[in-house]
C-alpha cells in the first residue's frame, strides 16, 4: 500500500456500451479510457489537458465514484474507488464547469447550506464557510437572492463555491472556467492556486482545454487524447521536449491542399486548418532554414502570406507534436460534442 499518492490509477479502462435505439441488437462498445496510468502527489495541482471526447470527464467520474471502471484500479487518497466508494466520498468534492446546483426557489445561501448538510457540517461551520466562499466568488450581495434570479455565470459561481464547502482533501474541477468571463476566470484561477498552496495536504485535479490555463496553473499536466495519456510532466518540461526546435505560425490566404507541407524535408511536425476565412499553418521545424522552403511552397500554391510568427513553444505546440493535430483542429472535426 503506497499512501503517498493522492490519486493513482493503474491500467484504467472504461468502455461504454452504446445502445442503439429502435432495438437493433448492434451495440458498439466505445473505449473512453484506454489503459490510463497516472499518479498525482499530495499537494499537487494537476491538469488534464485534452480535446473534446478525450476522456477527461470519464476519468473524473470514476475518481468521484459516479462511474465504475470497466477494468483496472483507481485509488483516491489510497482508497479504492470501486471497493470503498463511501470512504472516497468523505474526502472529495467535484465541480463541473457548466453546471449549477440546487433549487431555484432557494436563496444562494440556502442552497449552499443544503449541500453542507449532506456532509454533516454543523450550522456554525457551514455559515462561516458559505460566507467566505461567497466573498471569494463575488456573490456576497446575492447571498439572499433566490437562485433562479441569478445569471448563468452567477449560478456557476454558486456551484463553484459549493465544491469547497466540505473542505475536501482532494478536489476535482471539470473545466471550472467554462463559459465564465475573463475577469471571473482569472479570479477563480488565482483562488484555486492559492487554495492548494495555502492548505497543506490538499490536492486538486483540473481538466481543461484551455492551454494557457493548464500552463499557468498546473504543477504537472497530463495530455490525454482518445482515452490515452500521451505525456505527463511539468509544463516547462513538456515544452522542453521542443527545445531546439523552432515553432512558427503562418496565416495565409485560403488554401485547399495543405498536405504537401508535412512532406517537406526539415518539417518535424505540421498541422494546418481553416480559420475565419484564412488558413492557419503550424510548423515545428528542426532547423529554421526550412522556413525558406515553406515560404516558396506557399507562393507556388498560389496563396499569399498574411502573417508569420515565431514563438516559444507553448503547450499547444507540445500537443501538436504529440498528436499531430492541433487541439482546435480536433475539436472542429469532432464537432465539439460533449
Amino acid at each position: 500500500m503506497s499512501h503517498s499518492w493522492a490519486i493513482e490509477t493503474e491500467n484504467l479502462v472504461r468502455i461504454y456500451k452504446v445502445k442503439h435505439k429502435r432495438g437493433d441488437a448492434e451495440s458498439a462498445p466505445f473505449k473512453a479510457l484506454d489503459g490510463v496510468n497516472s499518479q498525482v502527489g499530495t499537494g499537487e495541482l494537476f491538469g488534464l489537458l485534452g480535446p473534446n471526447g478525450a476522456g477527461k470527464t470519464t476519468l473524473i467520474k470514476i475518481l468521484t465514484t459516479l462511474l465504475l471502471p470497466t477494468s483496472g484500479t483507481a485509488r483516491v487518497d489510497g482508497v479504492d474507488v470501486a471497493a470503498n466508494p463511501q470512504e472516497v466520498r468523505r474526502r472529495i468534492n467535484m465541480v463541473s464547469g457548466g453546471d449549477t446546483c440546487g433549487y431555484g426557489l432557494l436563496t444562494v445561501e440556502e442552497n449552499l447550506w443544503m449541500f453542507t448538510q449532506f456532509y454533516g457540517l454543523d450550522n456554525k461551520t457551514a455559515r462561516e464557510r458559505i460566507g467566505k466562499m461567497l466573498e471569494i466568488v463575488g456573490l456576497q450581495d446575492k447571498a439572499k437572492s433566490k437562485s433562479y434570479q441569478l445569471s448563468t455565470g452567477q449560478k456557476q459561481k454558486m456551484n463553484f463555491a459549493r465544491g469547497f464547502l466540505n473542505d475536501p482533501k482532494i478536489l476535482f474541477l471539470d473545466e471550472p472556467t467554462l463559459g465564465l468571463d475573463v475577469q471571473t476566470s482569472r479570479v477563480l484561477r488565482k483562488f484555486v492556486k492559492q487554495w492548494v498552496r495555502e492548505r497543506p495536504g490538499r490536492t486538486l485535479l483540473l481538466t481543461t482545454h484551455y492551454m494557457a490555463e493548464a500552463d499557468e496553473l498546473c504543477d504537472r499536466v497530463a495530455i490525454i487524447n482518445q482515452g490515452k495519456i500521451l505525456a505527463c510532466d511539468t509544463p516547462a518540461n513538456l515544452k522542453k521536449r521542443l527545445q531546439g526546435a523552432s515553432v512558427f505560425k503562418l496565416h495565409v490566404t485560403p488554401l485547399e491542399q495543405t498536405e504537401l507541407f508535412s512532406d517537406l524535408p526539415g518539417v518535424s511536425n505540421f498541422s494546418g486548418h481553416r480559420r475565419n476565412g484564412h488558413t492557419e499553418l503550424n510548423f515545428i521545424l528542426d532547423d529554421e532554414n526550412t522556413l525558406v522552403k515553406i515560404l516558396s511552397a506557399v507562393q507556388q500554391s498560389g496563396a499569399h502570406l498574411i502573417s508569420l510568427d515565431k514563438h516559444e513553444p507553448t503547450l499547444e505546440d507540445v500537443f501538436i507534436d504529440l498528436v499531430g493535430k492541433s487541439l482546435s483542429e480536433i475539436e472542429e472535426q469532432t464537432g465539439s460534442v460533449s
Partner: protein
Amino acid sequence: MILFLRTVLGRAYPRLIGIQREKSWLIFGVFLPLLGVSAYVFIYKALKSPPEFVGFVILGGAMTAYWLNVLWSMATQFYWEKETGNLQLYLMAPTSRMAILMGMAFGGLVSTSIRAAAILIVGSLIFSVHFTVVSWWQLILVFLFTMVALYGLGMLFSSLFLLFGREAWHLSSLLQEPIYFLSGFYFPIKSLGYWVSIGASIVPITLGLDAMRQLVMPSAKWGFLSVDEELGILLVMSIVFVFVAHRALLYMENLARREGRLTIRGQ
C-alpha cells in the same frame, strides 16, 4: 446518525420553504381540489345519496393531495434531479441516499398536510359536515401507517421511474386518474366489489382512506374491512414498501455506476 438527520432536514428544507414562497399552492392545492370535491357533492346531493357521502368526498379530496404529491414530487423527482444535475451531487456526497429520499418525503408530507388540512377544513365548513372521531389513537395510527406506506411507495417509484427516463412523466399521468377511481377518493371502495377492492388496496391510500372514513363517520356502514385488519395490512405495507424502496435505490445506484447512463442528462 447525525449526518443522516442533517441530510433529511437539508433535503426537506426546499420543500418546507417552498410552501411559504410559492403562493400558487393556494389555488392549485386547495381551490381546484375543492372544486372537484364540490362537483361530487352536488352529484351525490342530486342522487339523494346518504348524507355521509359528502364527508366521504371531502376526506377523499384531502387525501388526493397526498397522492398527487407522491406522483409528481416523489416518483418523478430523481429523474428531474438527474436533468438538473443535482442527482450526481447527491450520489457523490458521503451520506445515505435513503436519507435524501426521506428528506424529500418528509418535506412533501409536511407541505401537503397543510394543503390537505385546508381542503378538509374549508370543505367541511362549506358543506357543514360533522365528523365524529371514534378513536383518536386509531385514527392517528391509520394516518401514520398510510403515510409511511404511501411515501415508501413514492420512494420506490422514484428509483424505478429513473430507469424509465422520460417515460416517467407519462407513467405518472397514467397513474393519476385511475387511482382516483380505484382508491375510491370520491366514494367508498366497497361499492367496487370485493376483488377490485383487494386489487386497489396495493395503493396504501385505498385502505387508509377506508379506515379513516370508518373512524370519523361511524354511522355509515360502508367499511371494506374492519379497521384493525386495515391497520394491520397498512403496517405490513409500510415495512415492505420502505424495504423494497431501499433495495431499488441500491440497485439504481449500482446500475448508474456500472452503465454510466443514469447520471447523464437528456435521455
